[in-house]
């Protein structure tokens, strides 16, 4: 029960690493990976800060939110992958036309 | 919903409903369309007559509807609005007859007459507006409904003319909107009141803002009243069919602008308040400049309709001139000229339309000797032209007379010089046409068109110019009759200047 919410800081770091990769890399599969990493980062922040209860069970509400988030993440990732494949099939490359998408 | 609130709405509906129905009529059902048009025009005329009688007997007609929690849409029939409403309903009837004849077998007539009726609805709305926001509403509606009429022909030239028309009017509308909103933030009411609703309120103590607002309002209205820098769209809009340019220049668009300036100067600011604000003098200057500049430009126009267009630009500024000069006589001159200029100009445009439609004459240069071929049309044209110049018994003379004496009363001697100069210029660009038409030997290519039937052209094209020419004569001769426009103008001025 360390006082410093270490994993929350890691979560913030993951969020920023994911955002950097999302902005910088062109390939759609990398962008989907980046989105998943950012998602994990946000969930880490959400869960770690729920663990600050003194000598009591951690707050279950964020845990429920994270499970919802994970399921939503897998659903959107699955759809994004199929969309990427369709883009690759139609345009020949699994990248968005303008190289560096914001 | 008693009679006093129903009548204004009925007057609006009398052209709105036929218009909406006509939109959905197929092109082939000519008889129904003509019947609807004429029915609408006649009912409007009757309703206006009923309202006029009511107003004389002191009945107060007002229809009110809440537009915003603190703002109402008001239609009210006071003396000034009645003048403009009666003018537009009379001329709308004549122009409808003329348009039916003119567009005998041209395409898209349902669309044309639909927008035609909506345009008159907007004009009547502008006339009967009881406060600035209602006025703004119908003023912008007028822009929207006249644009399709200008681009009716569908040629590239028409589209460009329409585009330039929009540039001016939409920009003007935006300025007007800002002015009106600014006013609504300063004053809690925008209702038109005879002496203006500004004098004595605490906001009146901020002249700077009020002058800026006045400039905004006049700029917005000046676009349609064709004051000098803002008149560019008018000559270009001549590409529209004749009934449209007749209606636009004599009744709807141009007059709405001038009427708006009358409302702003008299019923928003109040003439005394505006005078000591010092805004009326620059307005007089602008009006005078417009009169002279437009008359000079008219001299060099070979196309008949463009010459008439420039003449309209200068004539409308007579109204602004009369209003901006502080003094009852000048005001009477200005207000009565609204009616006179309407009648004269519409007669001239009807004749121009006839010439273009039957003999395909568009240029002044090939009008030599046309009077032998079309004596009635050229007769009406001559009456209108002499009226414009200010020849005594006709309407033009009365307005110029009152403007002149008003100018002297307001110690603005140089205005008389401007009036005289403009009359000379009028003569300079009208008399050669009349002379050429009557006395020169015909040499244009139109001679081969033999006149096959008894009348020189279809009766529907001939009746309106004759009627308007007669009206110009009647208004001139019977100026002192109780119901004449002059008497009406005198009644309005009495209410404006108060006891």
């Amino acid at each position, binding site marked *: 029960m360390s006082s410093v919410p270490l994993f929350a800081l890691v979560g913030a770091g993951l969020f920023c690493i994911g*955002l950097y990769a*999302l902005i910088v890399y062109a390939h*759609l599969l990398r*962008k989907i990976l980046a*989105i998943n990493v*950012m*998602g994990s980062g*946000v969930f880490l*922040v*959400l869960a770690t*800060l*729920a663990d*600050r209860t003194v000598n009591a069970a951690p707050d279950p*509400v964020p845990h429920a939110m994270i499970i*919802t988030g994970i399921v*939503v993440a897998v*659903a*959107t990732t699955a*759809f*994004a992958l199929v*969309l*990427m494949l*369709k*883009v690759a099939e*139609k*345009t020949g490359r699994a990248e*968005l*036309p303008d190289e560096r*998408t*914001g | 919903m008693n009679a006093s609130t129903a009548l204004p709405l009925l007057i609006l509906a009398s052209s709105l409903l036929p218009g909406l129905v006509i939109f959905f009529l197929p092109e082939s059902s000519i008889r129904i369309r003509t019947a609807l048009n004429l029915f609408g025009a006649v009912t409007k005329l009757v309703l206006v007559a009923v309202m006029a009688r009511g107003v004389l007997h002191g009945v107060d007609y007002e229809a009110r*509807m*809440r*537009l*915003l*929690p603190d703002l109402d849409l008001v239609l009210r029939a006071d003396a000034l609005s009645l003048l403009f409403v009666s003018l537009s309903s009379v001329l709308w009837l004549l122009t409808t007859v003329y348009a039916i004849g003119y567009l005998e077998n041209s395409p898209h007539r349902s*669309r044309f007459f639909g927008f035609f009726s909506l345009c008159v609805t907007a004009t009547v709305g502008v006339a009967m507006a009881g406060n600035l926001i209602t006025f703004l*509403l119908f003023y*912008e*509606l007028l*822009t*929207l409904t006249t*644009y*399709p009429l200008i*681009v*009716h022909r*569908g*040629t*590239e030239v*028409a*589209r460009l003319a*329409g*585009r330039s028309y*929009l540039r001016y009017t*939409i920009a003007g509308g*935006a300025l007007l*909107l*800002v002015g009106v*909103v600014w006013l*609504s*933030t300063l004053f809690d009411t925008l209702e038109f009141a005879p002496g203006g609703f500004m004098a004595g309120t605490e906001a009146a103590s901020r002249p700077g803002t009020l002058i800026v607002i006045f400039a905004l309002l006049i700029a917005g209205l000046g676009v349609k009243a064709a004051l000098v820098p803002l008149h560019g769209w008018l000559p270009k809009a001549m590409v529209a069919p004749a009934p449209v340019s007749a209606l636009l220049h004599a009744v709807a668009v141009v007059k709405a602008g001038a009427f708006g300036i009358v409302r702003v100067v008299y019923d928003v600011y109040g003439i005394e308040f505006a005078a000591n604000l010092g805004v009326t003098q620059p307005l007089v200057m602008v009006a005078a400049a417009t009169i002279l500049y437009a008359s000079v430009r008219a001299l060099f126009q070979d196309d008949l309709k463009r010459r008439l267009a420039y003449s309209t630009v200068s004539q409308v500024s007579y109204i602004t001139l009369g209003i901006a000069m502080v003094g009852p006589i000048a005001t009477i001159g200005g207000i009565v000229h609204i009616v006179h200029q309407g009648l004269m100009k519409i007669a001239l445009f009807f004749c121009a339309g006839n010439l273009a439609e039957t003999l395909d004459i568009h240029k002044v240069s090939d009008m030599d000797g046309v009077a032998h071929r079309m004596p009635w049309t050229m007769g009406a044209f001559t009456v209108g032209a002499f009226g414009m110049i200010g020849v005594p018994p006709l309407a033009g003379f009365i307005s110029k007379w009152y403007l002149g004496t008003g100018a002297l009363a307001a110690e603005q001697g140089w205005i008389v010089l401007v009036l005289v100069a403009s009359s000379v210029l009028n003569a300079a660009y009208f008399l050669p046409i009349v002379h050429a038409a009557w006395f020169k030997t015909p040499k244009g290519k139109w001679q081969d068109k033999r006149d096959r039937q008894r009348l020189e052209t279809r009766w529907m094209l001939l009746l309106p110019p004759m009627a308007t020419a007669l009206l110009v004569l009647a208004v001139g001769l019977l100026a002192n009759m109780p119901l004449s426009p002059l008497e009406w103008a005198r009644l309005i001025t009495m209410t404006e200047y108060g006891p």
Partner: protein
Amino acid sequence: MEALAATVSWDACLIVLPLLGAIACFAWPNAAKKLALGTALAVLVSIASLTIRVTAAGAFRHAVGAWGAPLGIELLVDGLSLVMLSATAIVGLAITIYSAGYFKADVSSRFWPLWLFLWASLNALFLSSDIFNLYVALELTGLAAVTLTALAGSADALTAAARYLLVSLLGSLTYLLGVALVYHGFGSVDMAVLAGRVESTPVFWAAFSLMFVGLALKTALFPFHFWLPPAHASAPAPVSAALSGLVIKASFYILMRLWFEIVPADYSTFTNFLGVLGAAAVVWGGLQALRAKRLKLLIAYSTIMQVGYLFLAFPLAVAAAWRGALYLILSHALAKSAMFLAAGNILYCAGHDRIESLDRIAQRLPMSLAAFAVAGVSIMGLPPSGGFIAKWLMVEAALKSGQWWWAVTLVLGSLFAAAYVFKVVGYAFTQAEAPHTSIDVPAAMEWAALALAVAAVLMGLIAPWILASMEIGRAFPGAAIP
């Protein structure tokens, strides 16, 4: 029947009915069209009775599962949500009728479930007063919108859908991070509870700016607008009508909710920055719309401009400005969907929507052109349309609060709007040299577009009633200037 009508919680019906409809359409594809129309009518009935109840009994909160606010989720039905719900219902009904004729057989069986999911998620979003629930609703809306955009199947529709999906996911995650910080900072995710607990600490402002960036991404505010034009232009017409008319407004609605309920103090540098972004959106959107060669692209850029208008309400911060912004949302929803449906008719009939060669089509589709023009009146903000009322309220707010430069932006924007609307309408009156063959457009599609356009204009005449129902249960913030 009265007892049932009184006790039934109509707001819950608004969420459950479209969802049931969507699942039914998915289970029985060949009966999808009838089911969808039935659902649309059912939603309309629910909205009507909800309106009656709210106007009579005032705003009320509906605790889902009968648990209290901090623990459970609460639905809030007040003037703001009611007005948004009814706009969604009206536009939704028109789009449903339009899509019945628009889609071919195989595509239509895939369209209906997705469309009803989008409708349900919008209703859920407008009703919810719980910021995490709003995250899930935003996710559902985003995914439904992306799948509908990708329905067109062409190369640029797919790439636009992919870009839209990535931006939507990024927006949602940023928003979720903001929600996480707010939850852990103040102990609850319910707006009413938060309104009591929130104070202007750096944690709150950081969390709020994260949520703001997420929502701005989804609303396509100026720097984040790049994904909107390709997405709205290449999507099928009814879809782009739903996107531009409703989906964009959903995330702005959340911003408004947060700004009214949670944000403690007015932070002028922040609001002025928003105003500058809004003004940039107005100018940029207007210029791009003028340069657009294709009709749907022009309309999409016009959406960016209108979004710019919405953000001008922040710096004005006067109650009238918020009424104006909300009125703009409503009139824009109706007018913009009418425009897209009209553009859809033109595309359906002629196969292309290049603006230059529009005149050959205009002869055969007078009603669609009329719909476009009438909707244009509201977009331009000319009287008597709803757009005019919105512009009037916002300009009045700008002048009253002495910030005249926002008034200038608004007027400049309406000049841009006039320019690009008349650029299209101008071609409608030109003569067609060679009327080539074209498929004639089903009447229902033309009438749907015209009905929406006329509704947008008539909205201008019933302003007092709408303005009154807007502020049930929550007066807009900002000084109520006399």
